[in-house]
């Protein structure tokens, strides 16, 4: 049978949906807001520590292998992740989609309404933005401080 292992310090909202036949593991300190869906339909999912997952976002595993999402990731409203490997300290802005087969490194920012095709590799410290999906290197990364501030206020507010 599938297990859902949620750490003690993680906060999962009441209306979040965790579905699927495979294991789901949620690390310490993560916050999962209402109306999220985590679907382990064909393979297990492991979410790292201190992630923030906001409303209407989707994490789906449609492949046989394990899906690993790193620490300190910030998934804004409506983000969809289907790829297998996501690094640490990334920020997925509103309504961005990452297809199966893509690989995302650490310290990246994926802009709003951006769709990353299967087979695409986003290396460390890159921003993907705009209609034509231009990329450039981040000059000074503030992802870690942003998500730490967001996590501290939302933990104090919600519960």
């Amino acid at each position, binding site marked *: 049978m599938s297990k859902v292992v949620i750490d003690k310090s993680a906060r999962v909202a009441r*209306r979040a949906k965790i579905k699927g036949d495979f294991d789901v593991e949620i690390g310490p300190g993560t916050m999962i807001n*209402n*109306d999220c869906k985590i679907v382990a339909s064909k393979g297990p999912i492991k979410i790292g520590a201190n992630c923030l997952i906001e*409303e*209407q976002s989707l994490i789906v595993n449609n492949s046989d292998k394990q899906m690993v999402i790193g620490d300190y990731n910030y998934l804004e*409203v*409506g983000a969809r992740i289907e790829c297998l490997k996501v690094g640490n300290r990334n920020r997925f*802005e*509103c*309504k961005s989609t990452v297809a199966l087969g893509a690989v995302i490194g650490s310290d990246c920012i994926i*802009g*709003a*309404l951006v769709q990353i095709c299967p087979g695409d590799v986003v290396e460390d410290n890159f921003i993907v*933005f*705009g*209609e034509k999906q231009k990329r450039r290197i981040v000059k000074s990364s503030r992802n870690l401080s*942003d998500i730490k*501030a*967001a996590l*501290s*206020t939302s933990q104090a*507010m*919600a519960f």
Partner: protein
Amino acid sequence: MEKLQGSVIEPPKIYFDQKTWIQTKLGNKISKNSLLYGSNKIRVLGKTIVEPGVIIRGDLATVDLGKNCIICENSVIRPPDQRYPGKLVYIPLKIGDYCIIEKNSIIQAAKIADFVHVGQNCVIGKRSMVSSCVKILDNTVLAPNTVCPPFTVFGGSPGKVVGRLPPSFQHYCIDQTVTFYKNFVEEKTPIPSTAKRNSMK
């Protein structure tokens, strides 16, 4: 008297099921399938329509909705945050009168003034200020902190001025919202024929 029944110029009536919608005293029609968090901090002036699937986060900060607004399905209305050194604070969100917000859009603006038409699948960035009489096309992304001047059309990602609007856009918005609200009527069960006969006697 009123116009002829079944005339072509009048838009058709849209019937909603009385069980899944709430009608308040001020005339708001709010779907029961919408999620309103922190409802004591959400202020809605009369005659707005909130369709199913809408998420309004009033628990983060106060949300003010104007009158005669239409908020279509699956939109998210979320107050933006402001970072100060050492902390993060959520700012209240205000939406003006006669606004139309279409399906699947995400609004994180600080202020949206009156007579604004937001298209489908839009993302309005954090802390942005949208003035009155602005049209935002479908699939646009407004970057955080943008200011939209009045009587403009915004489009693209990042959102830029794409066109201009005539001064009659204000009346267009009033016309659209007021007729939509008038035609958004609850389904009435028909009176059985025996009751009618008794009342005639």
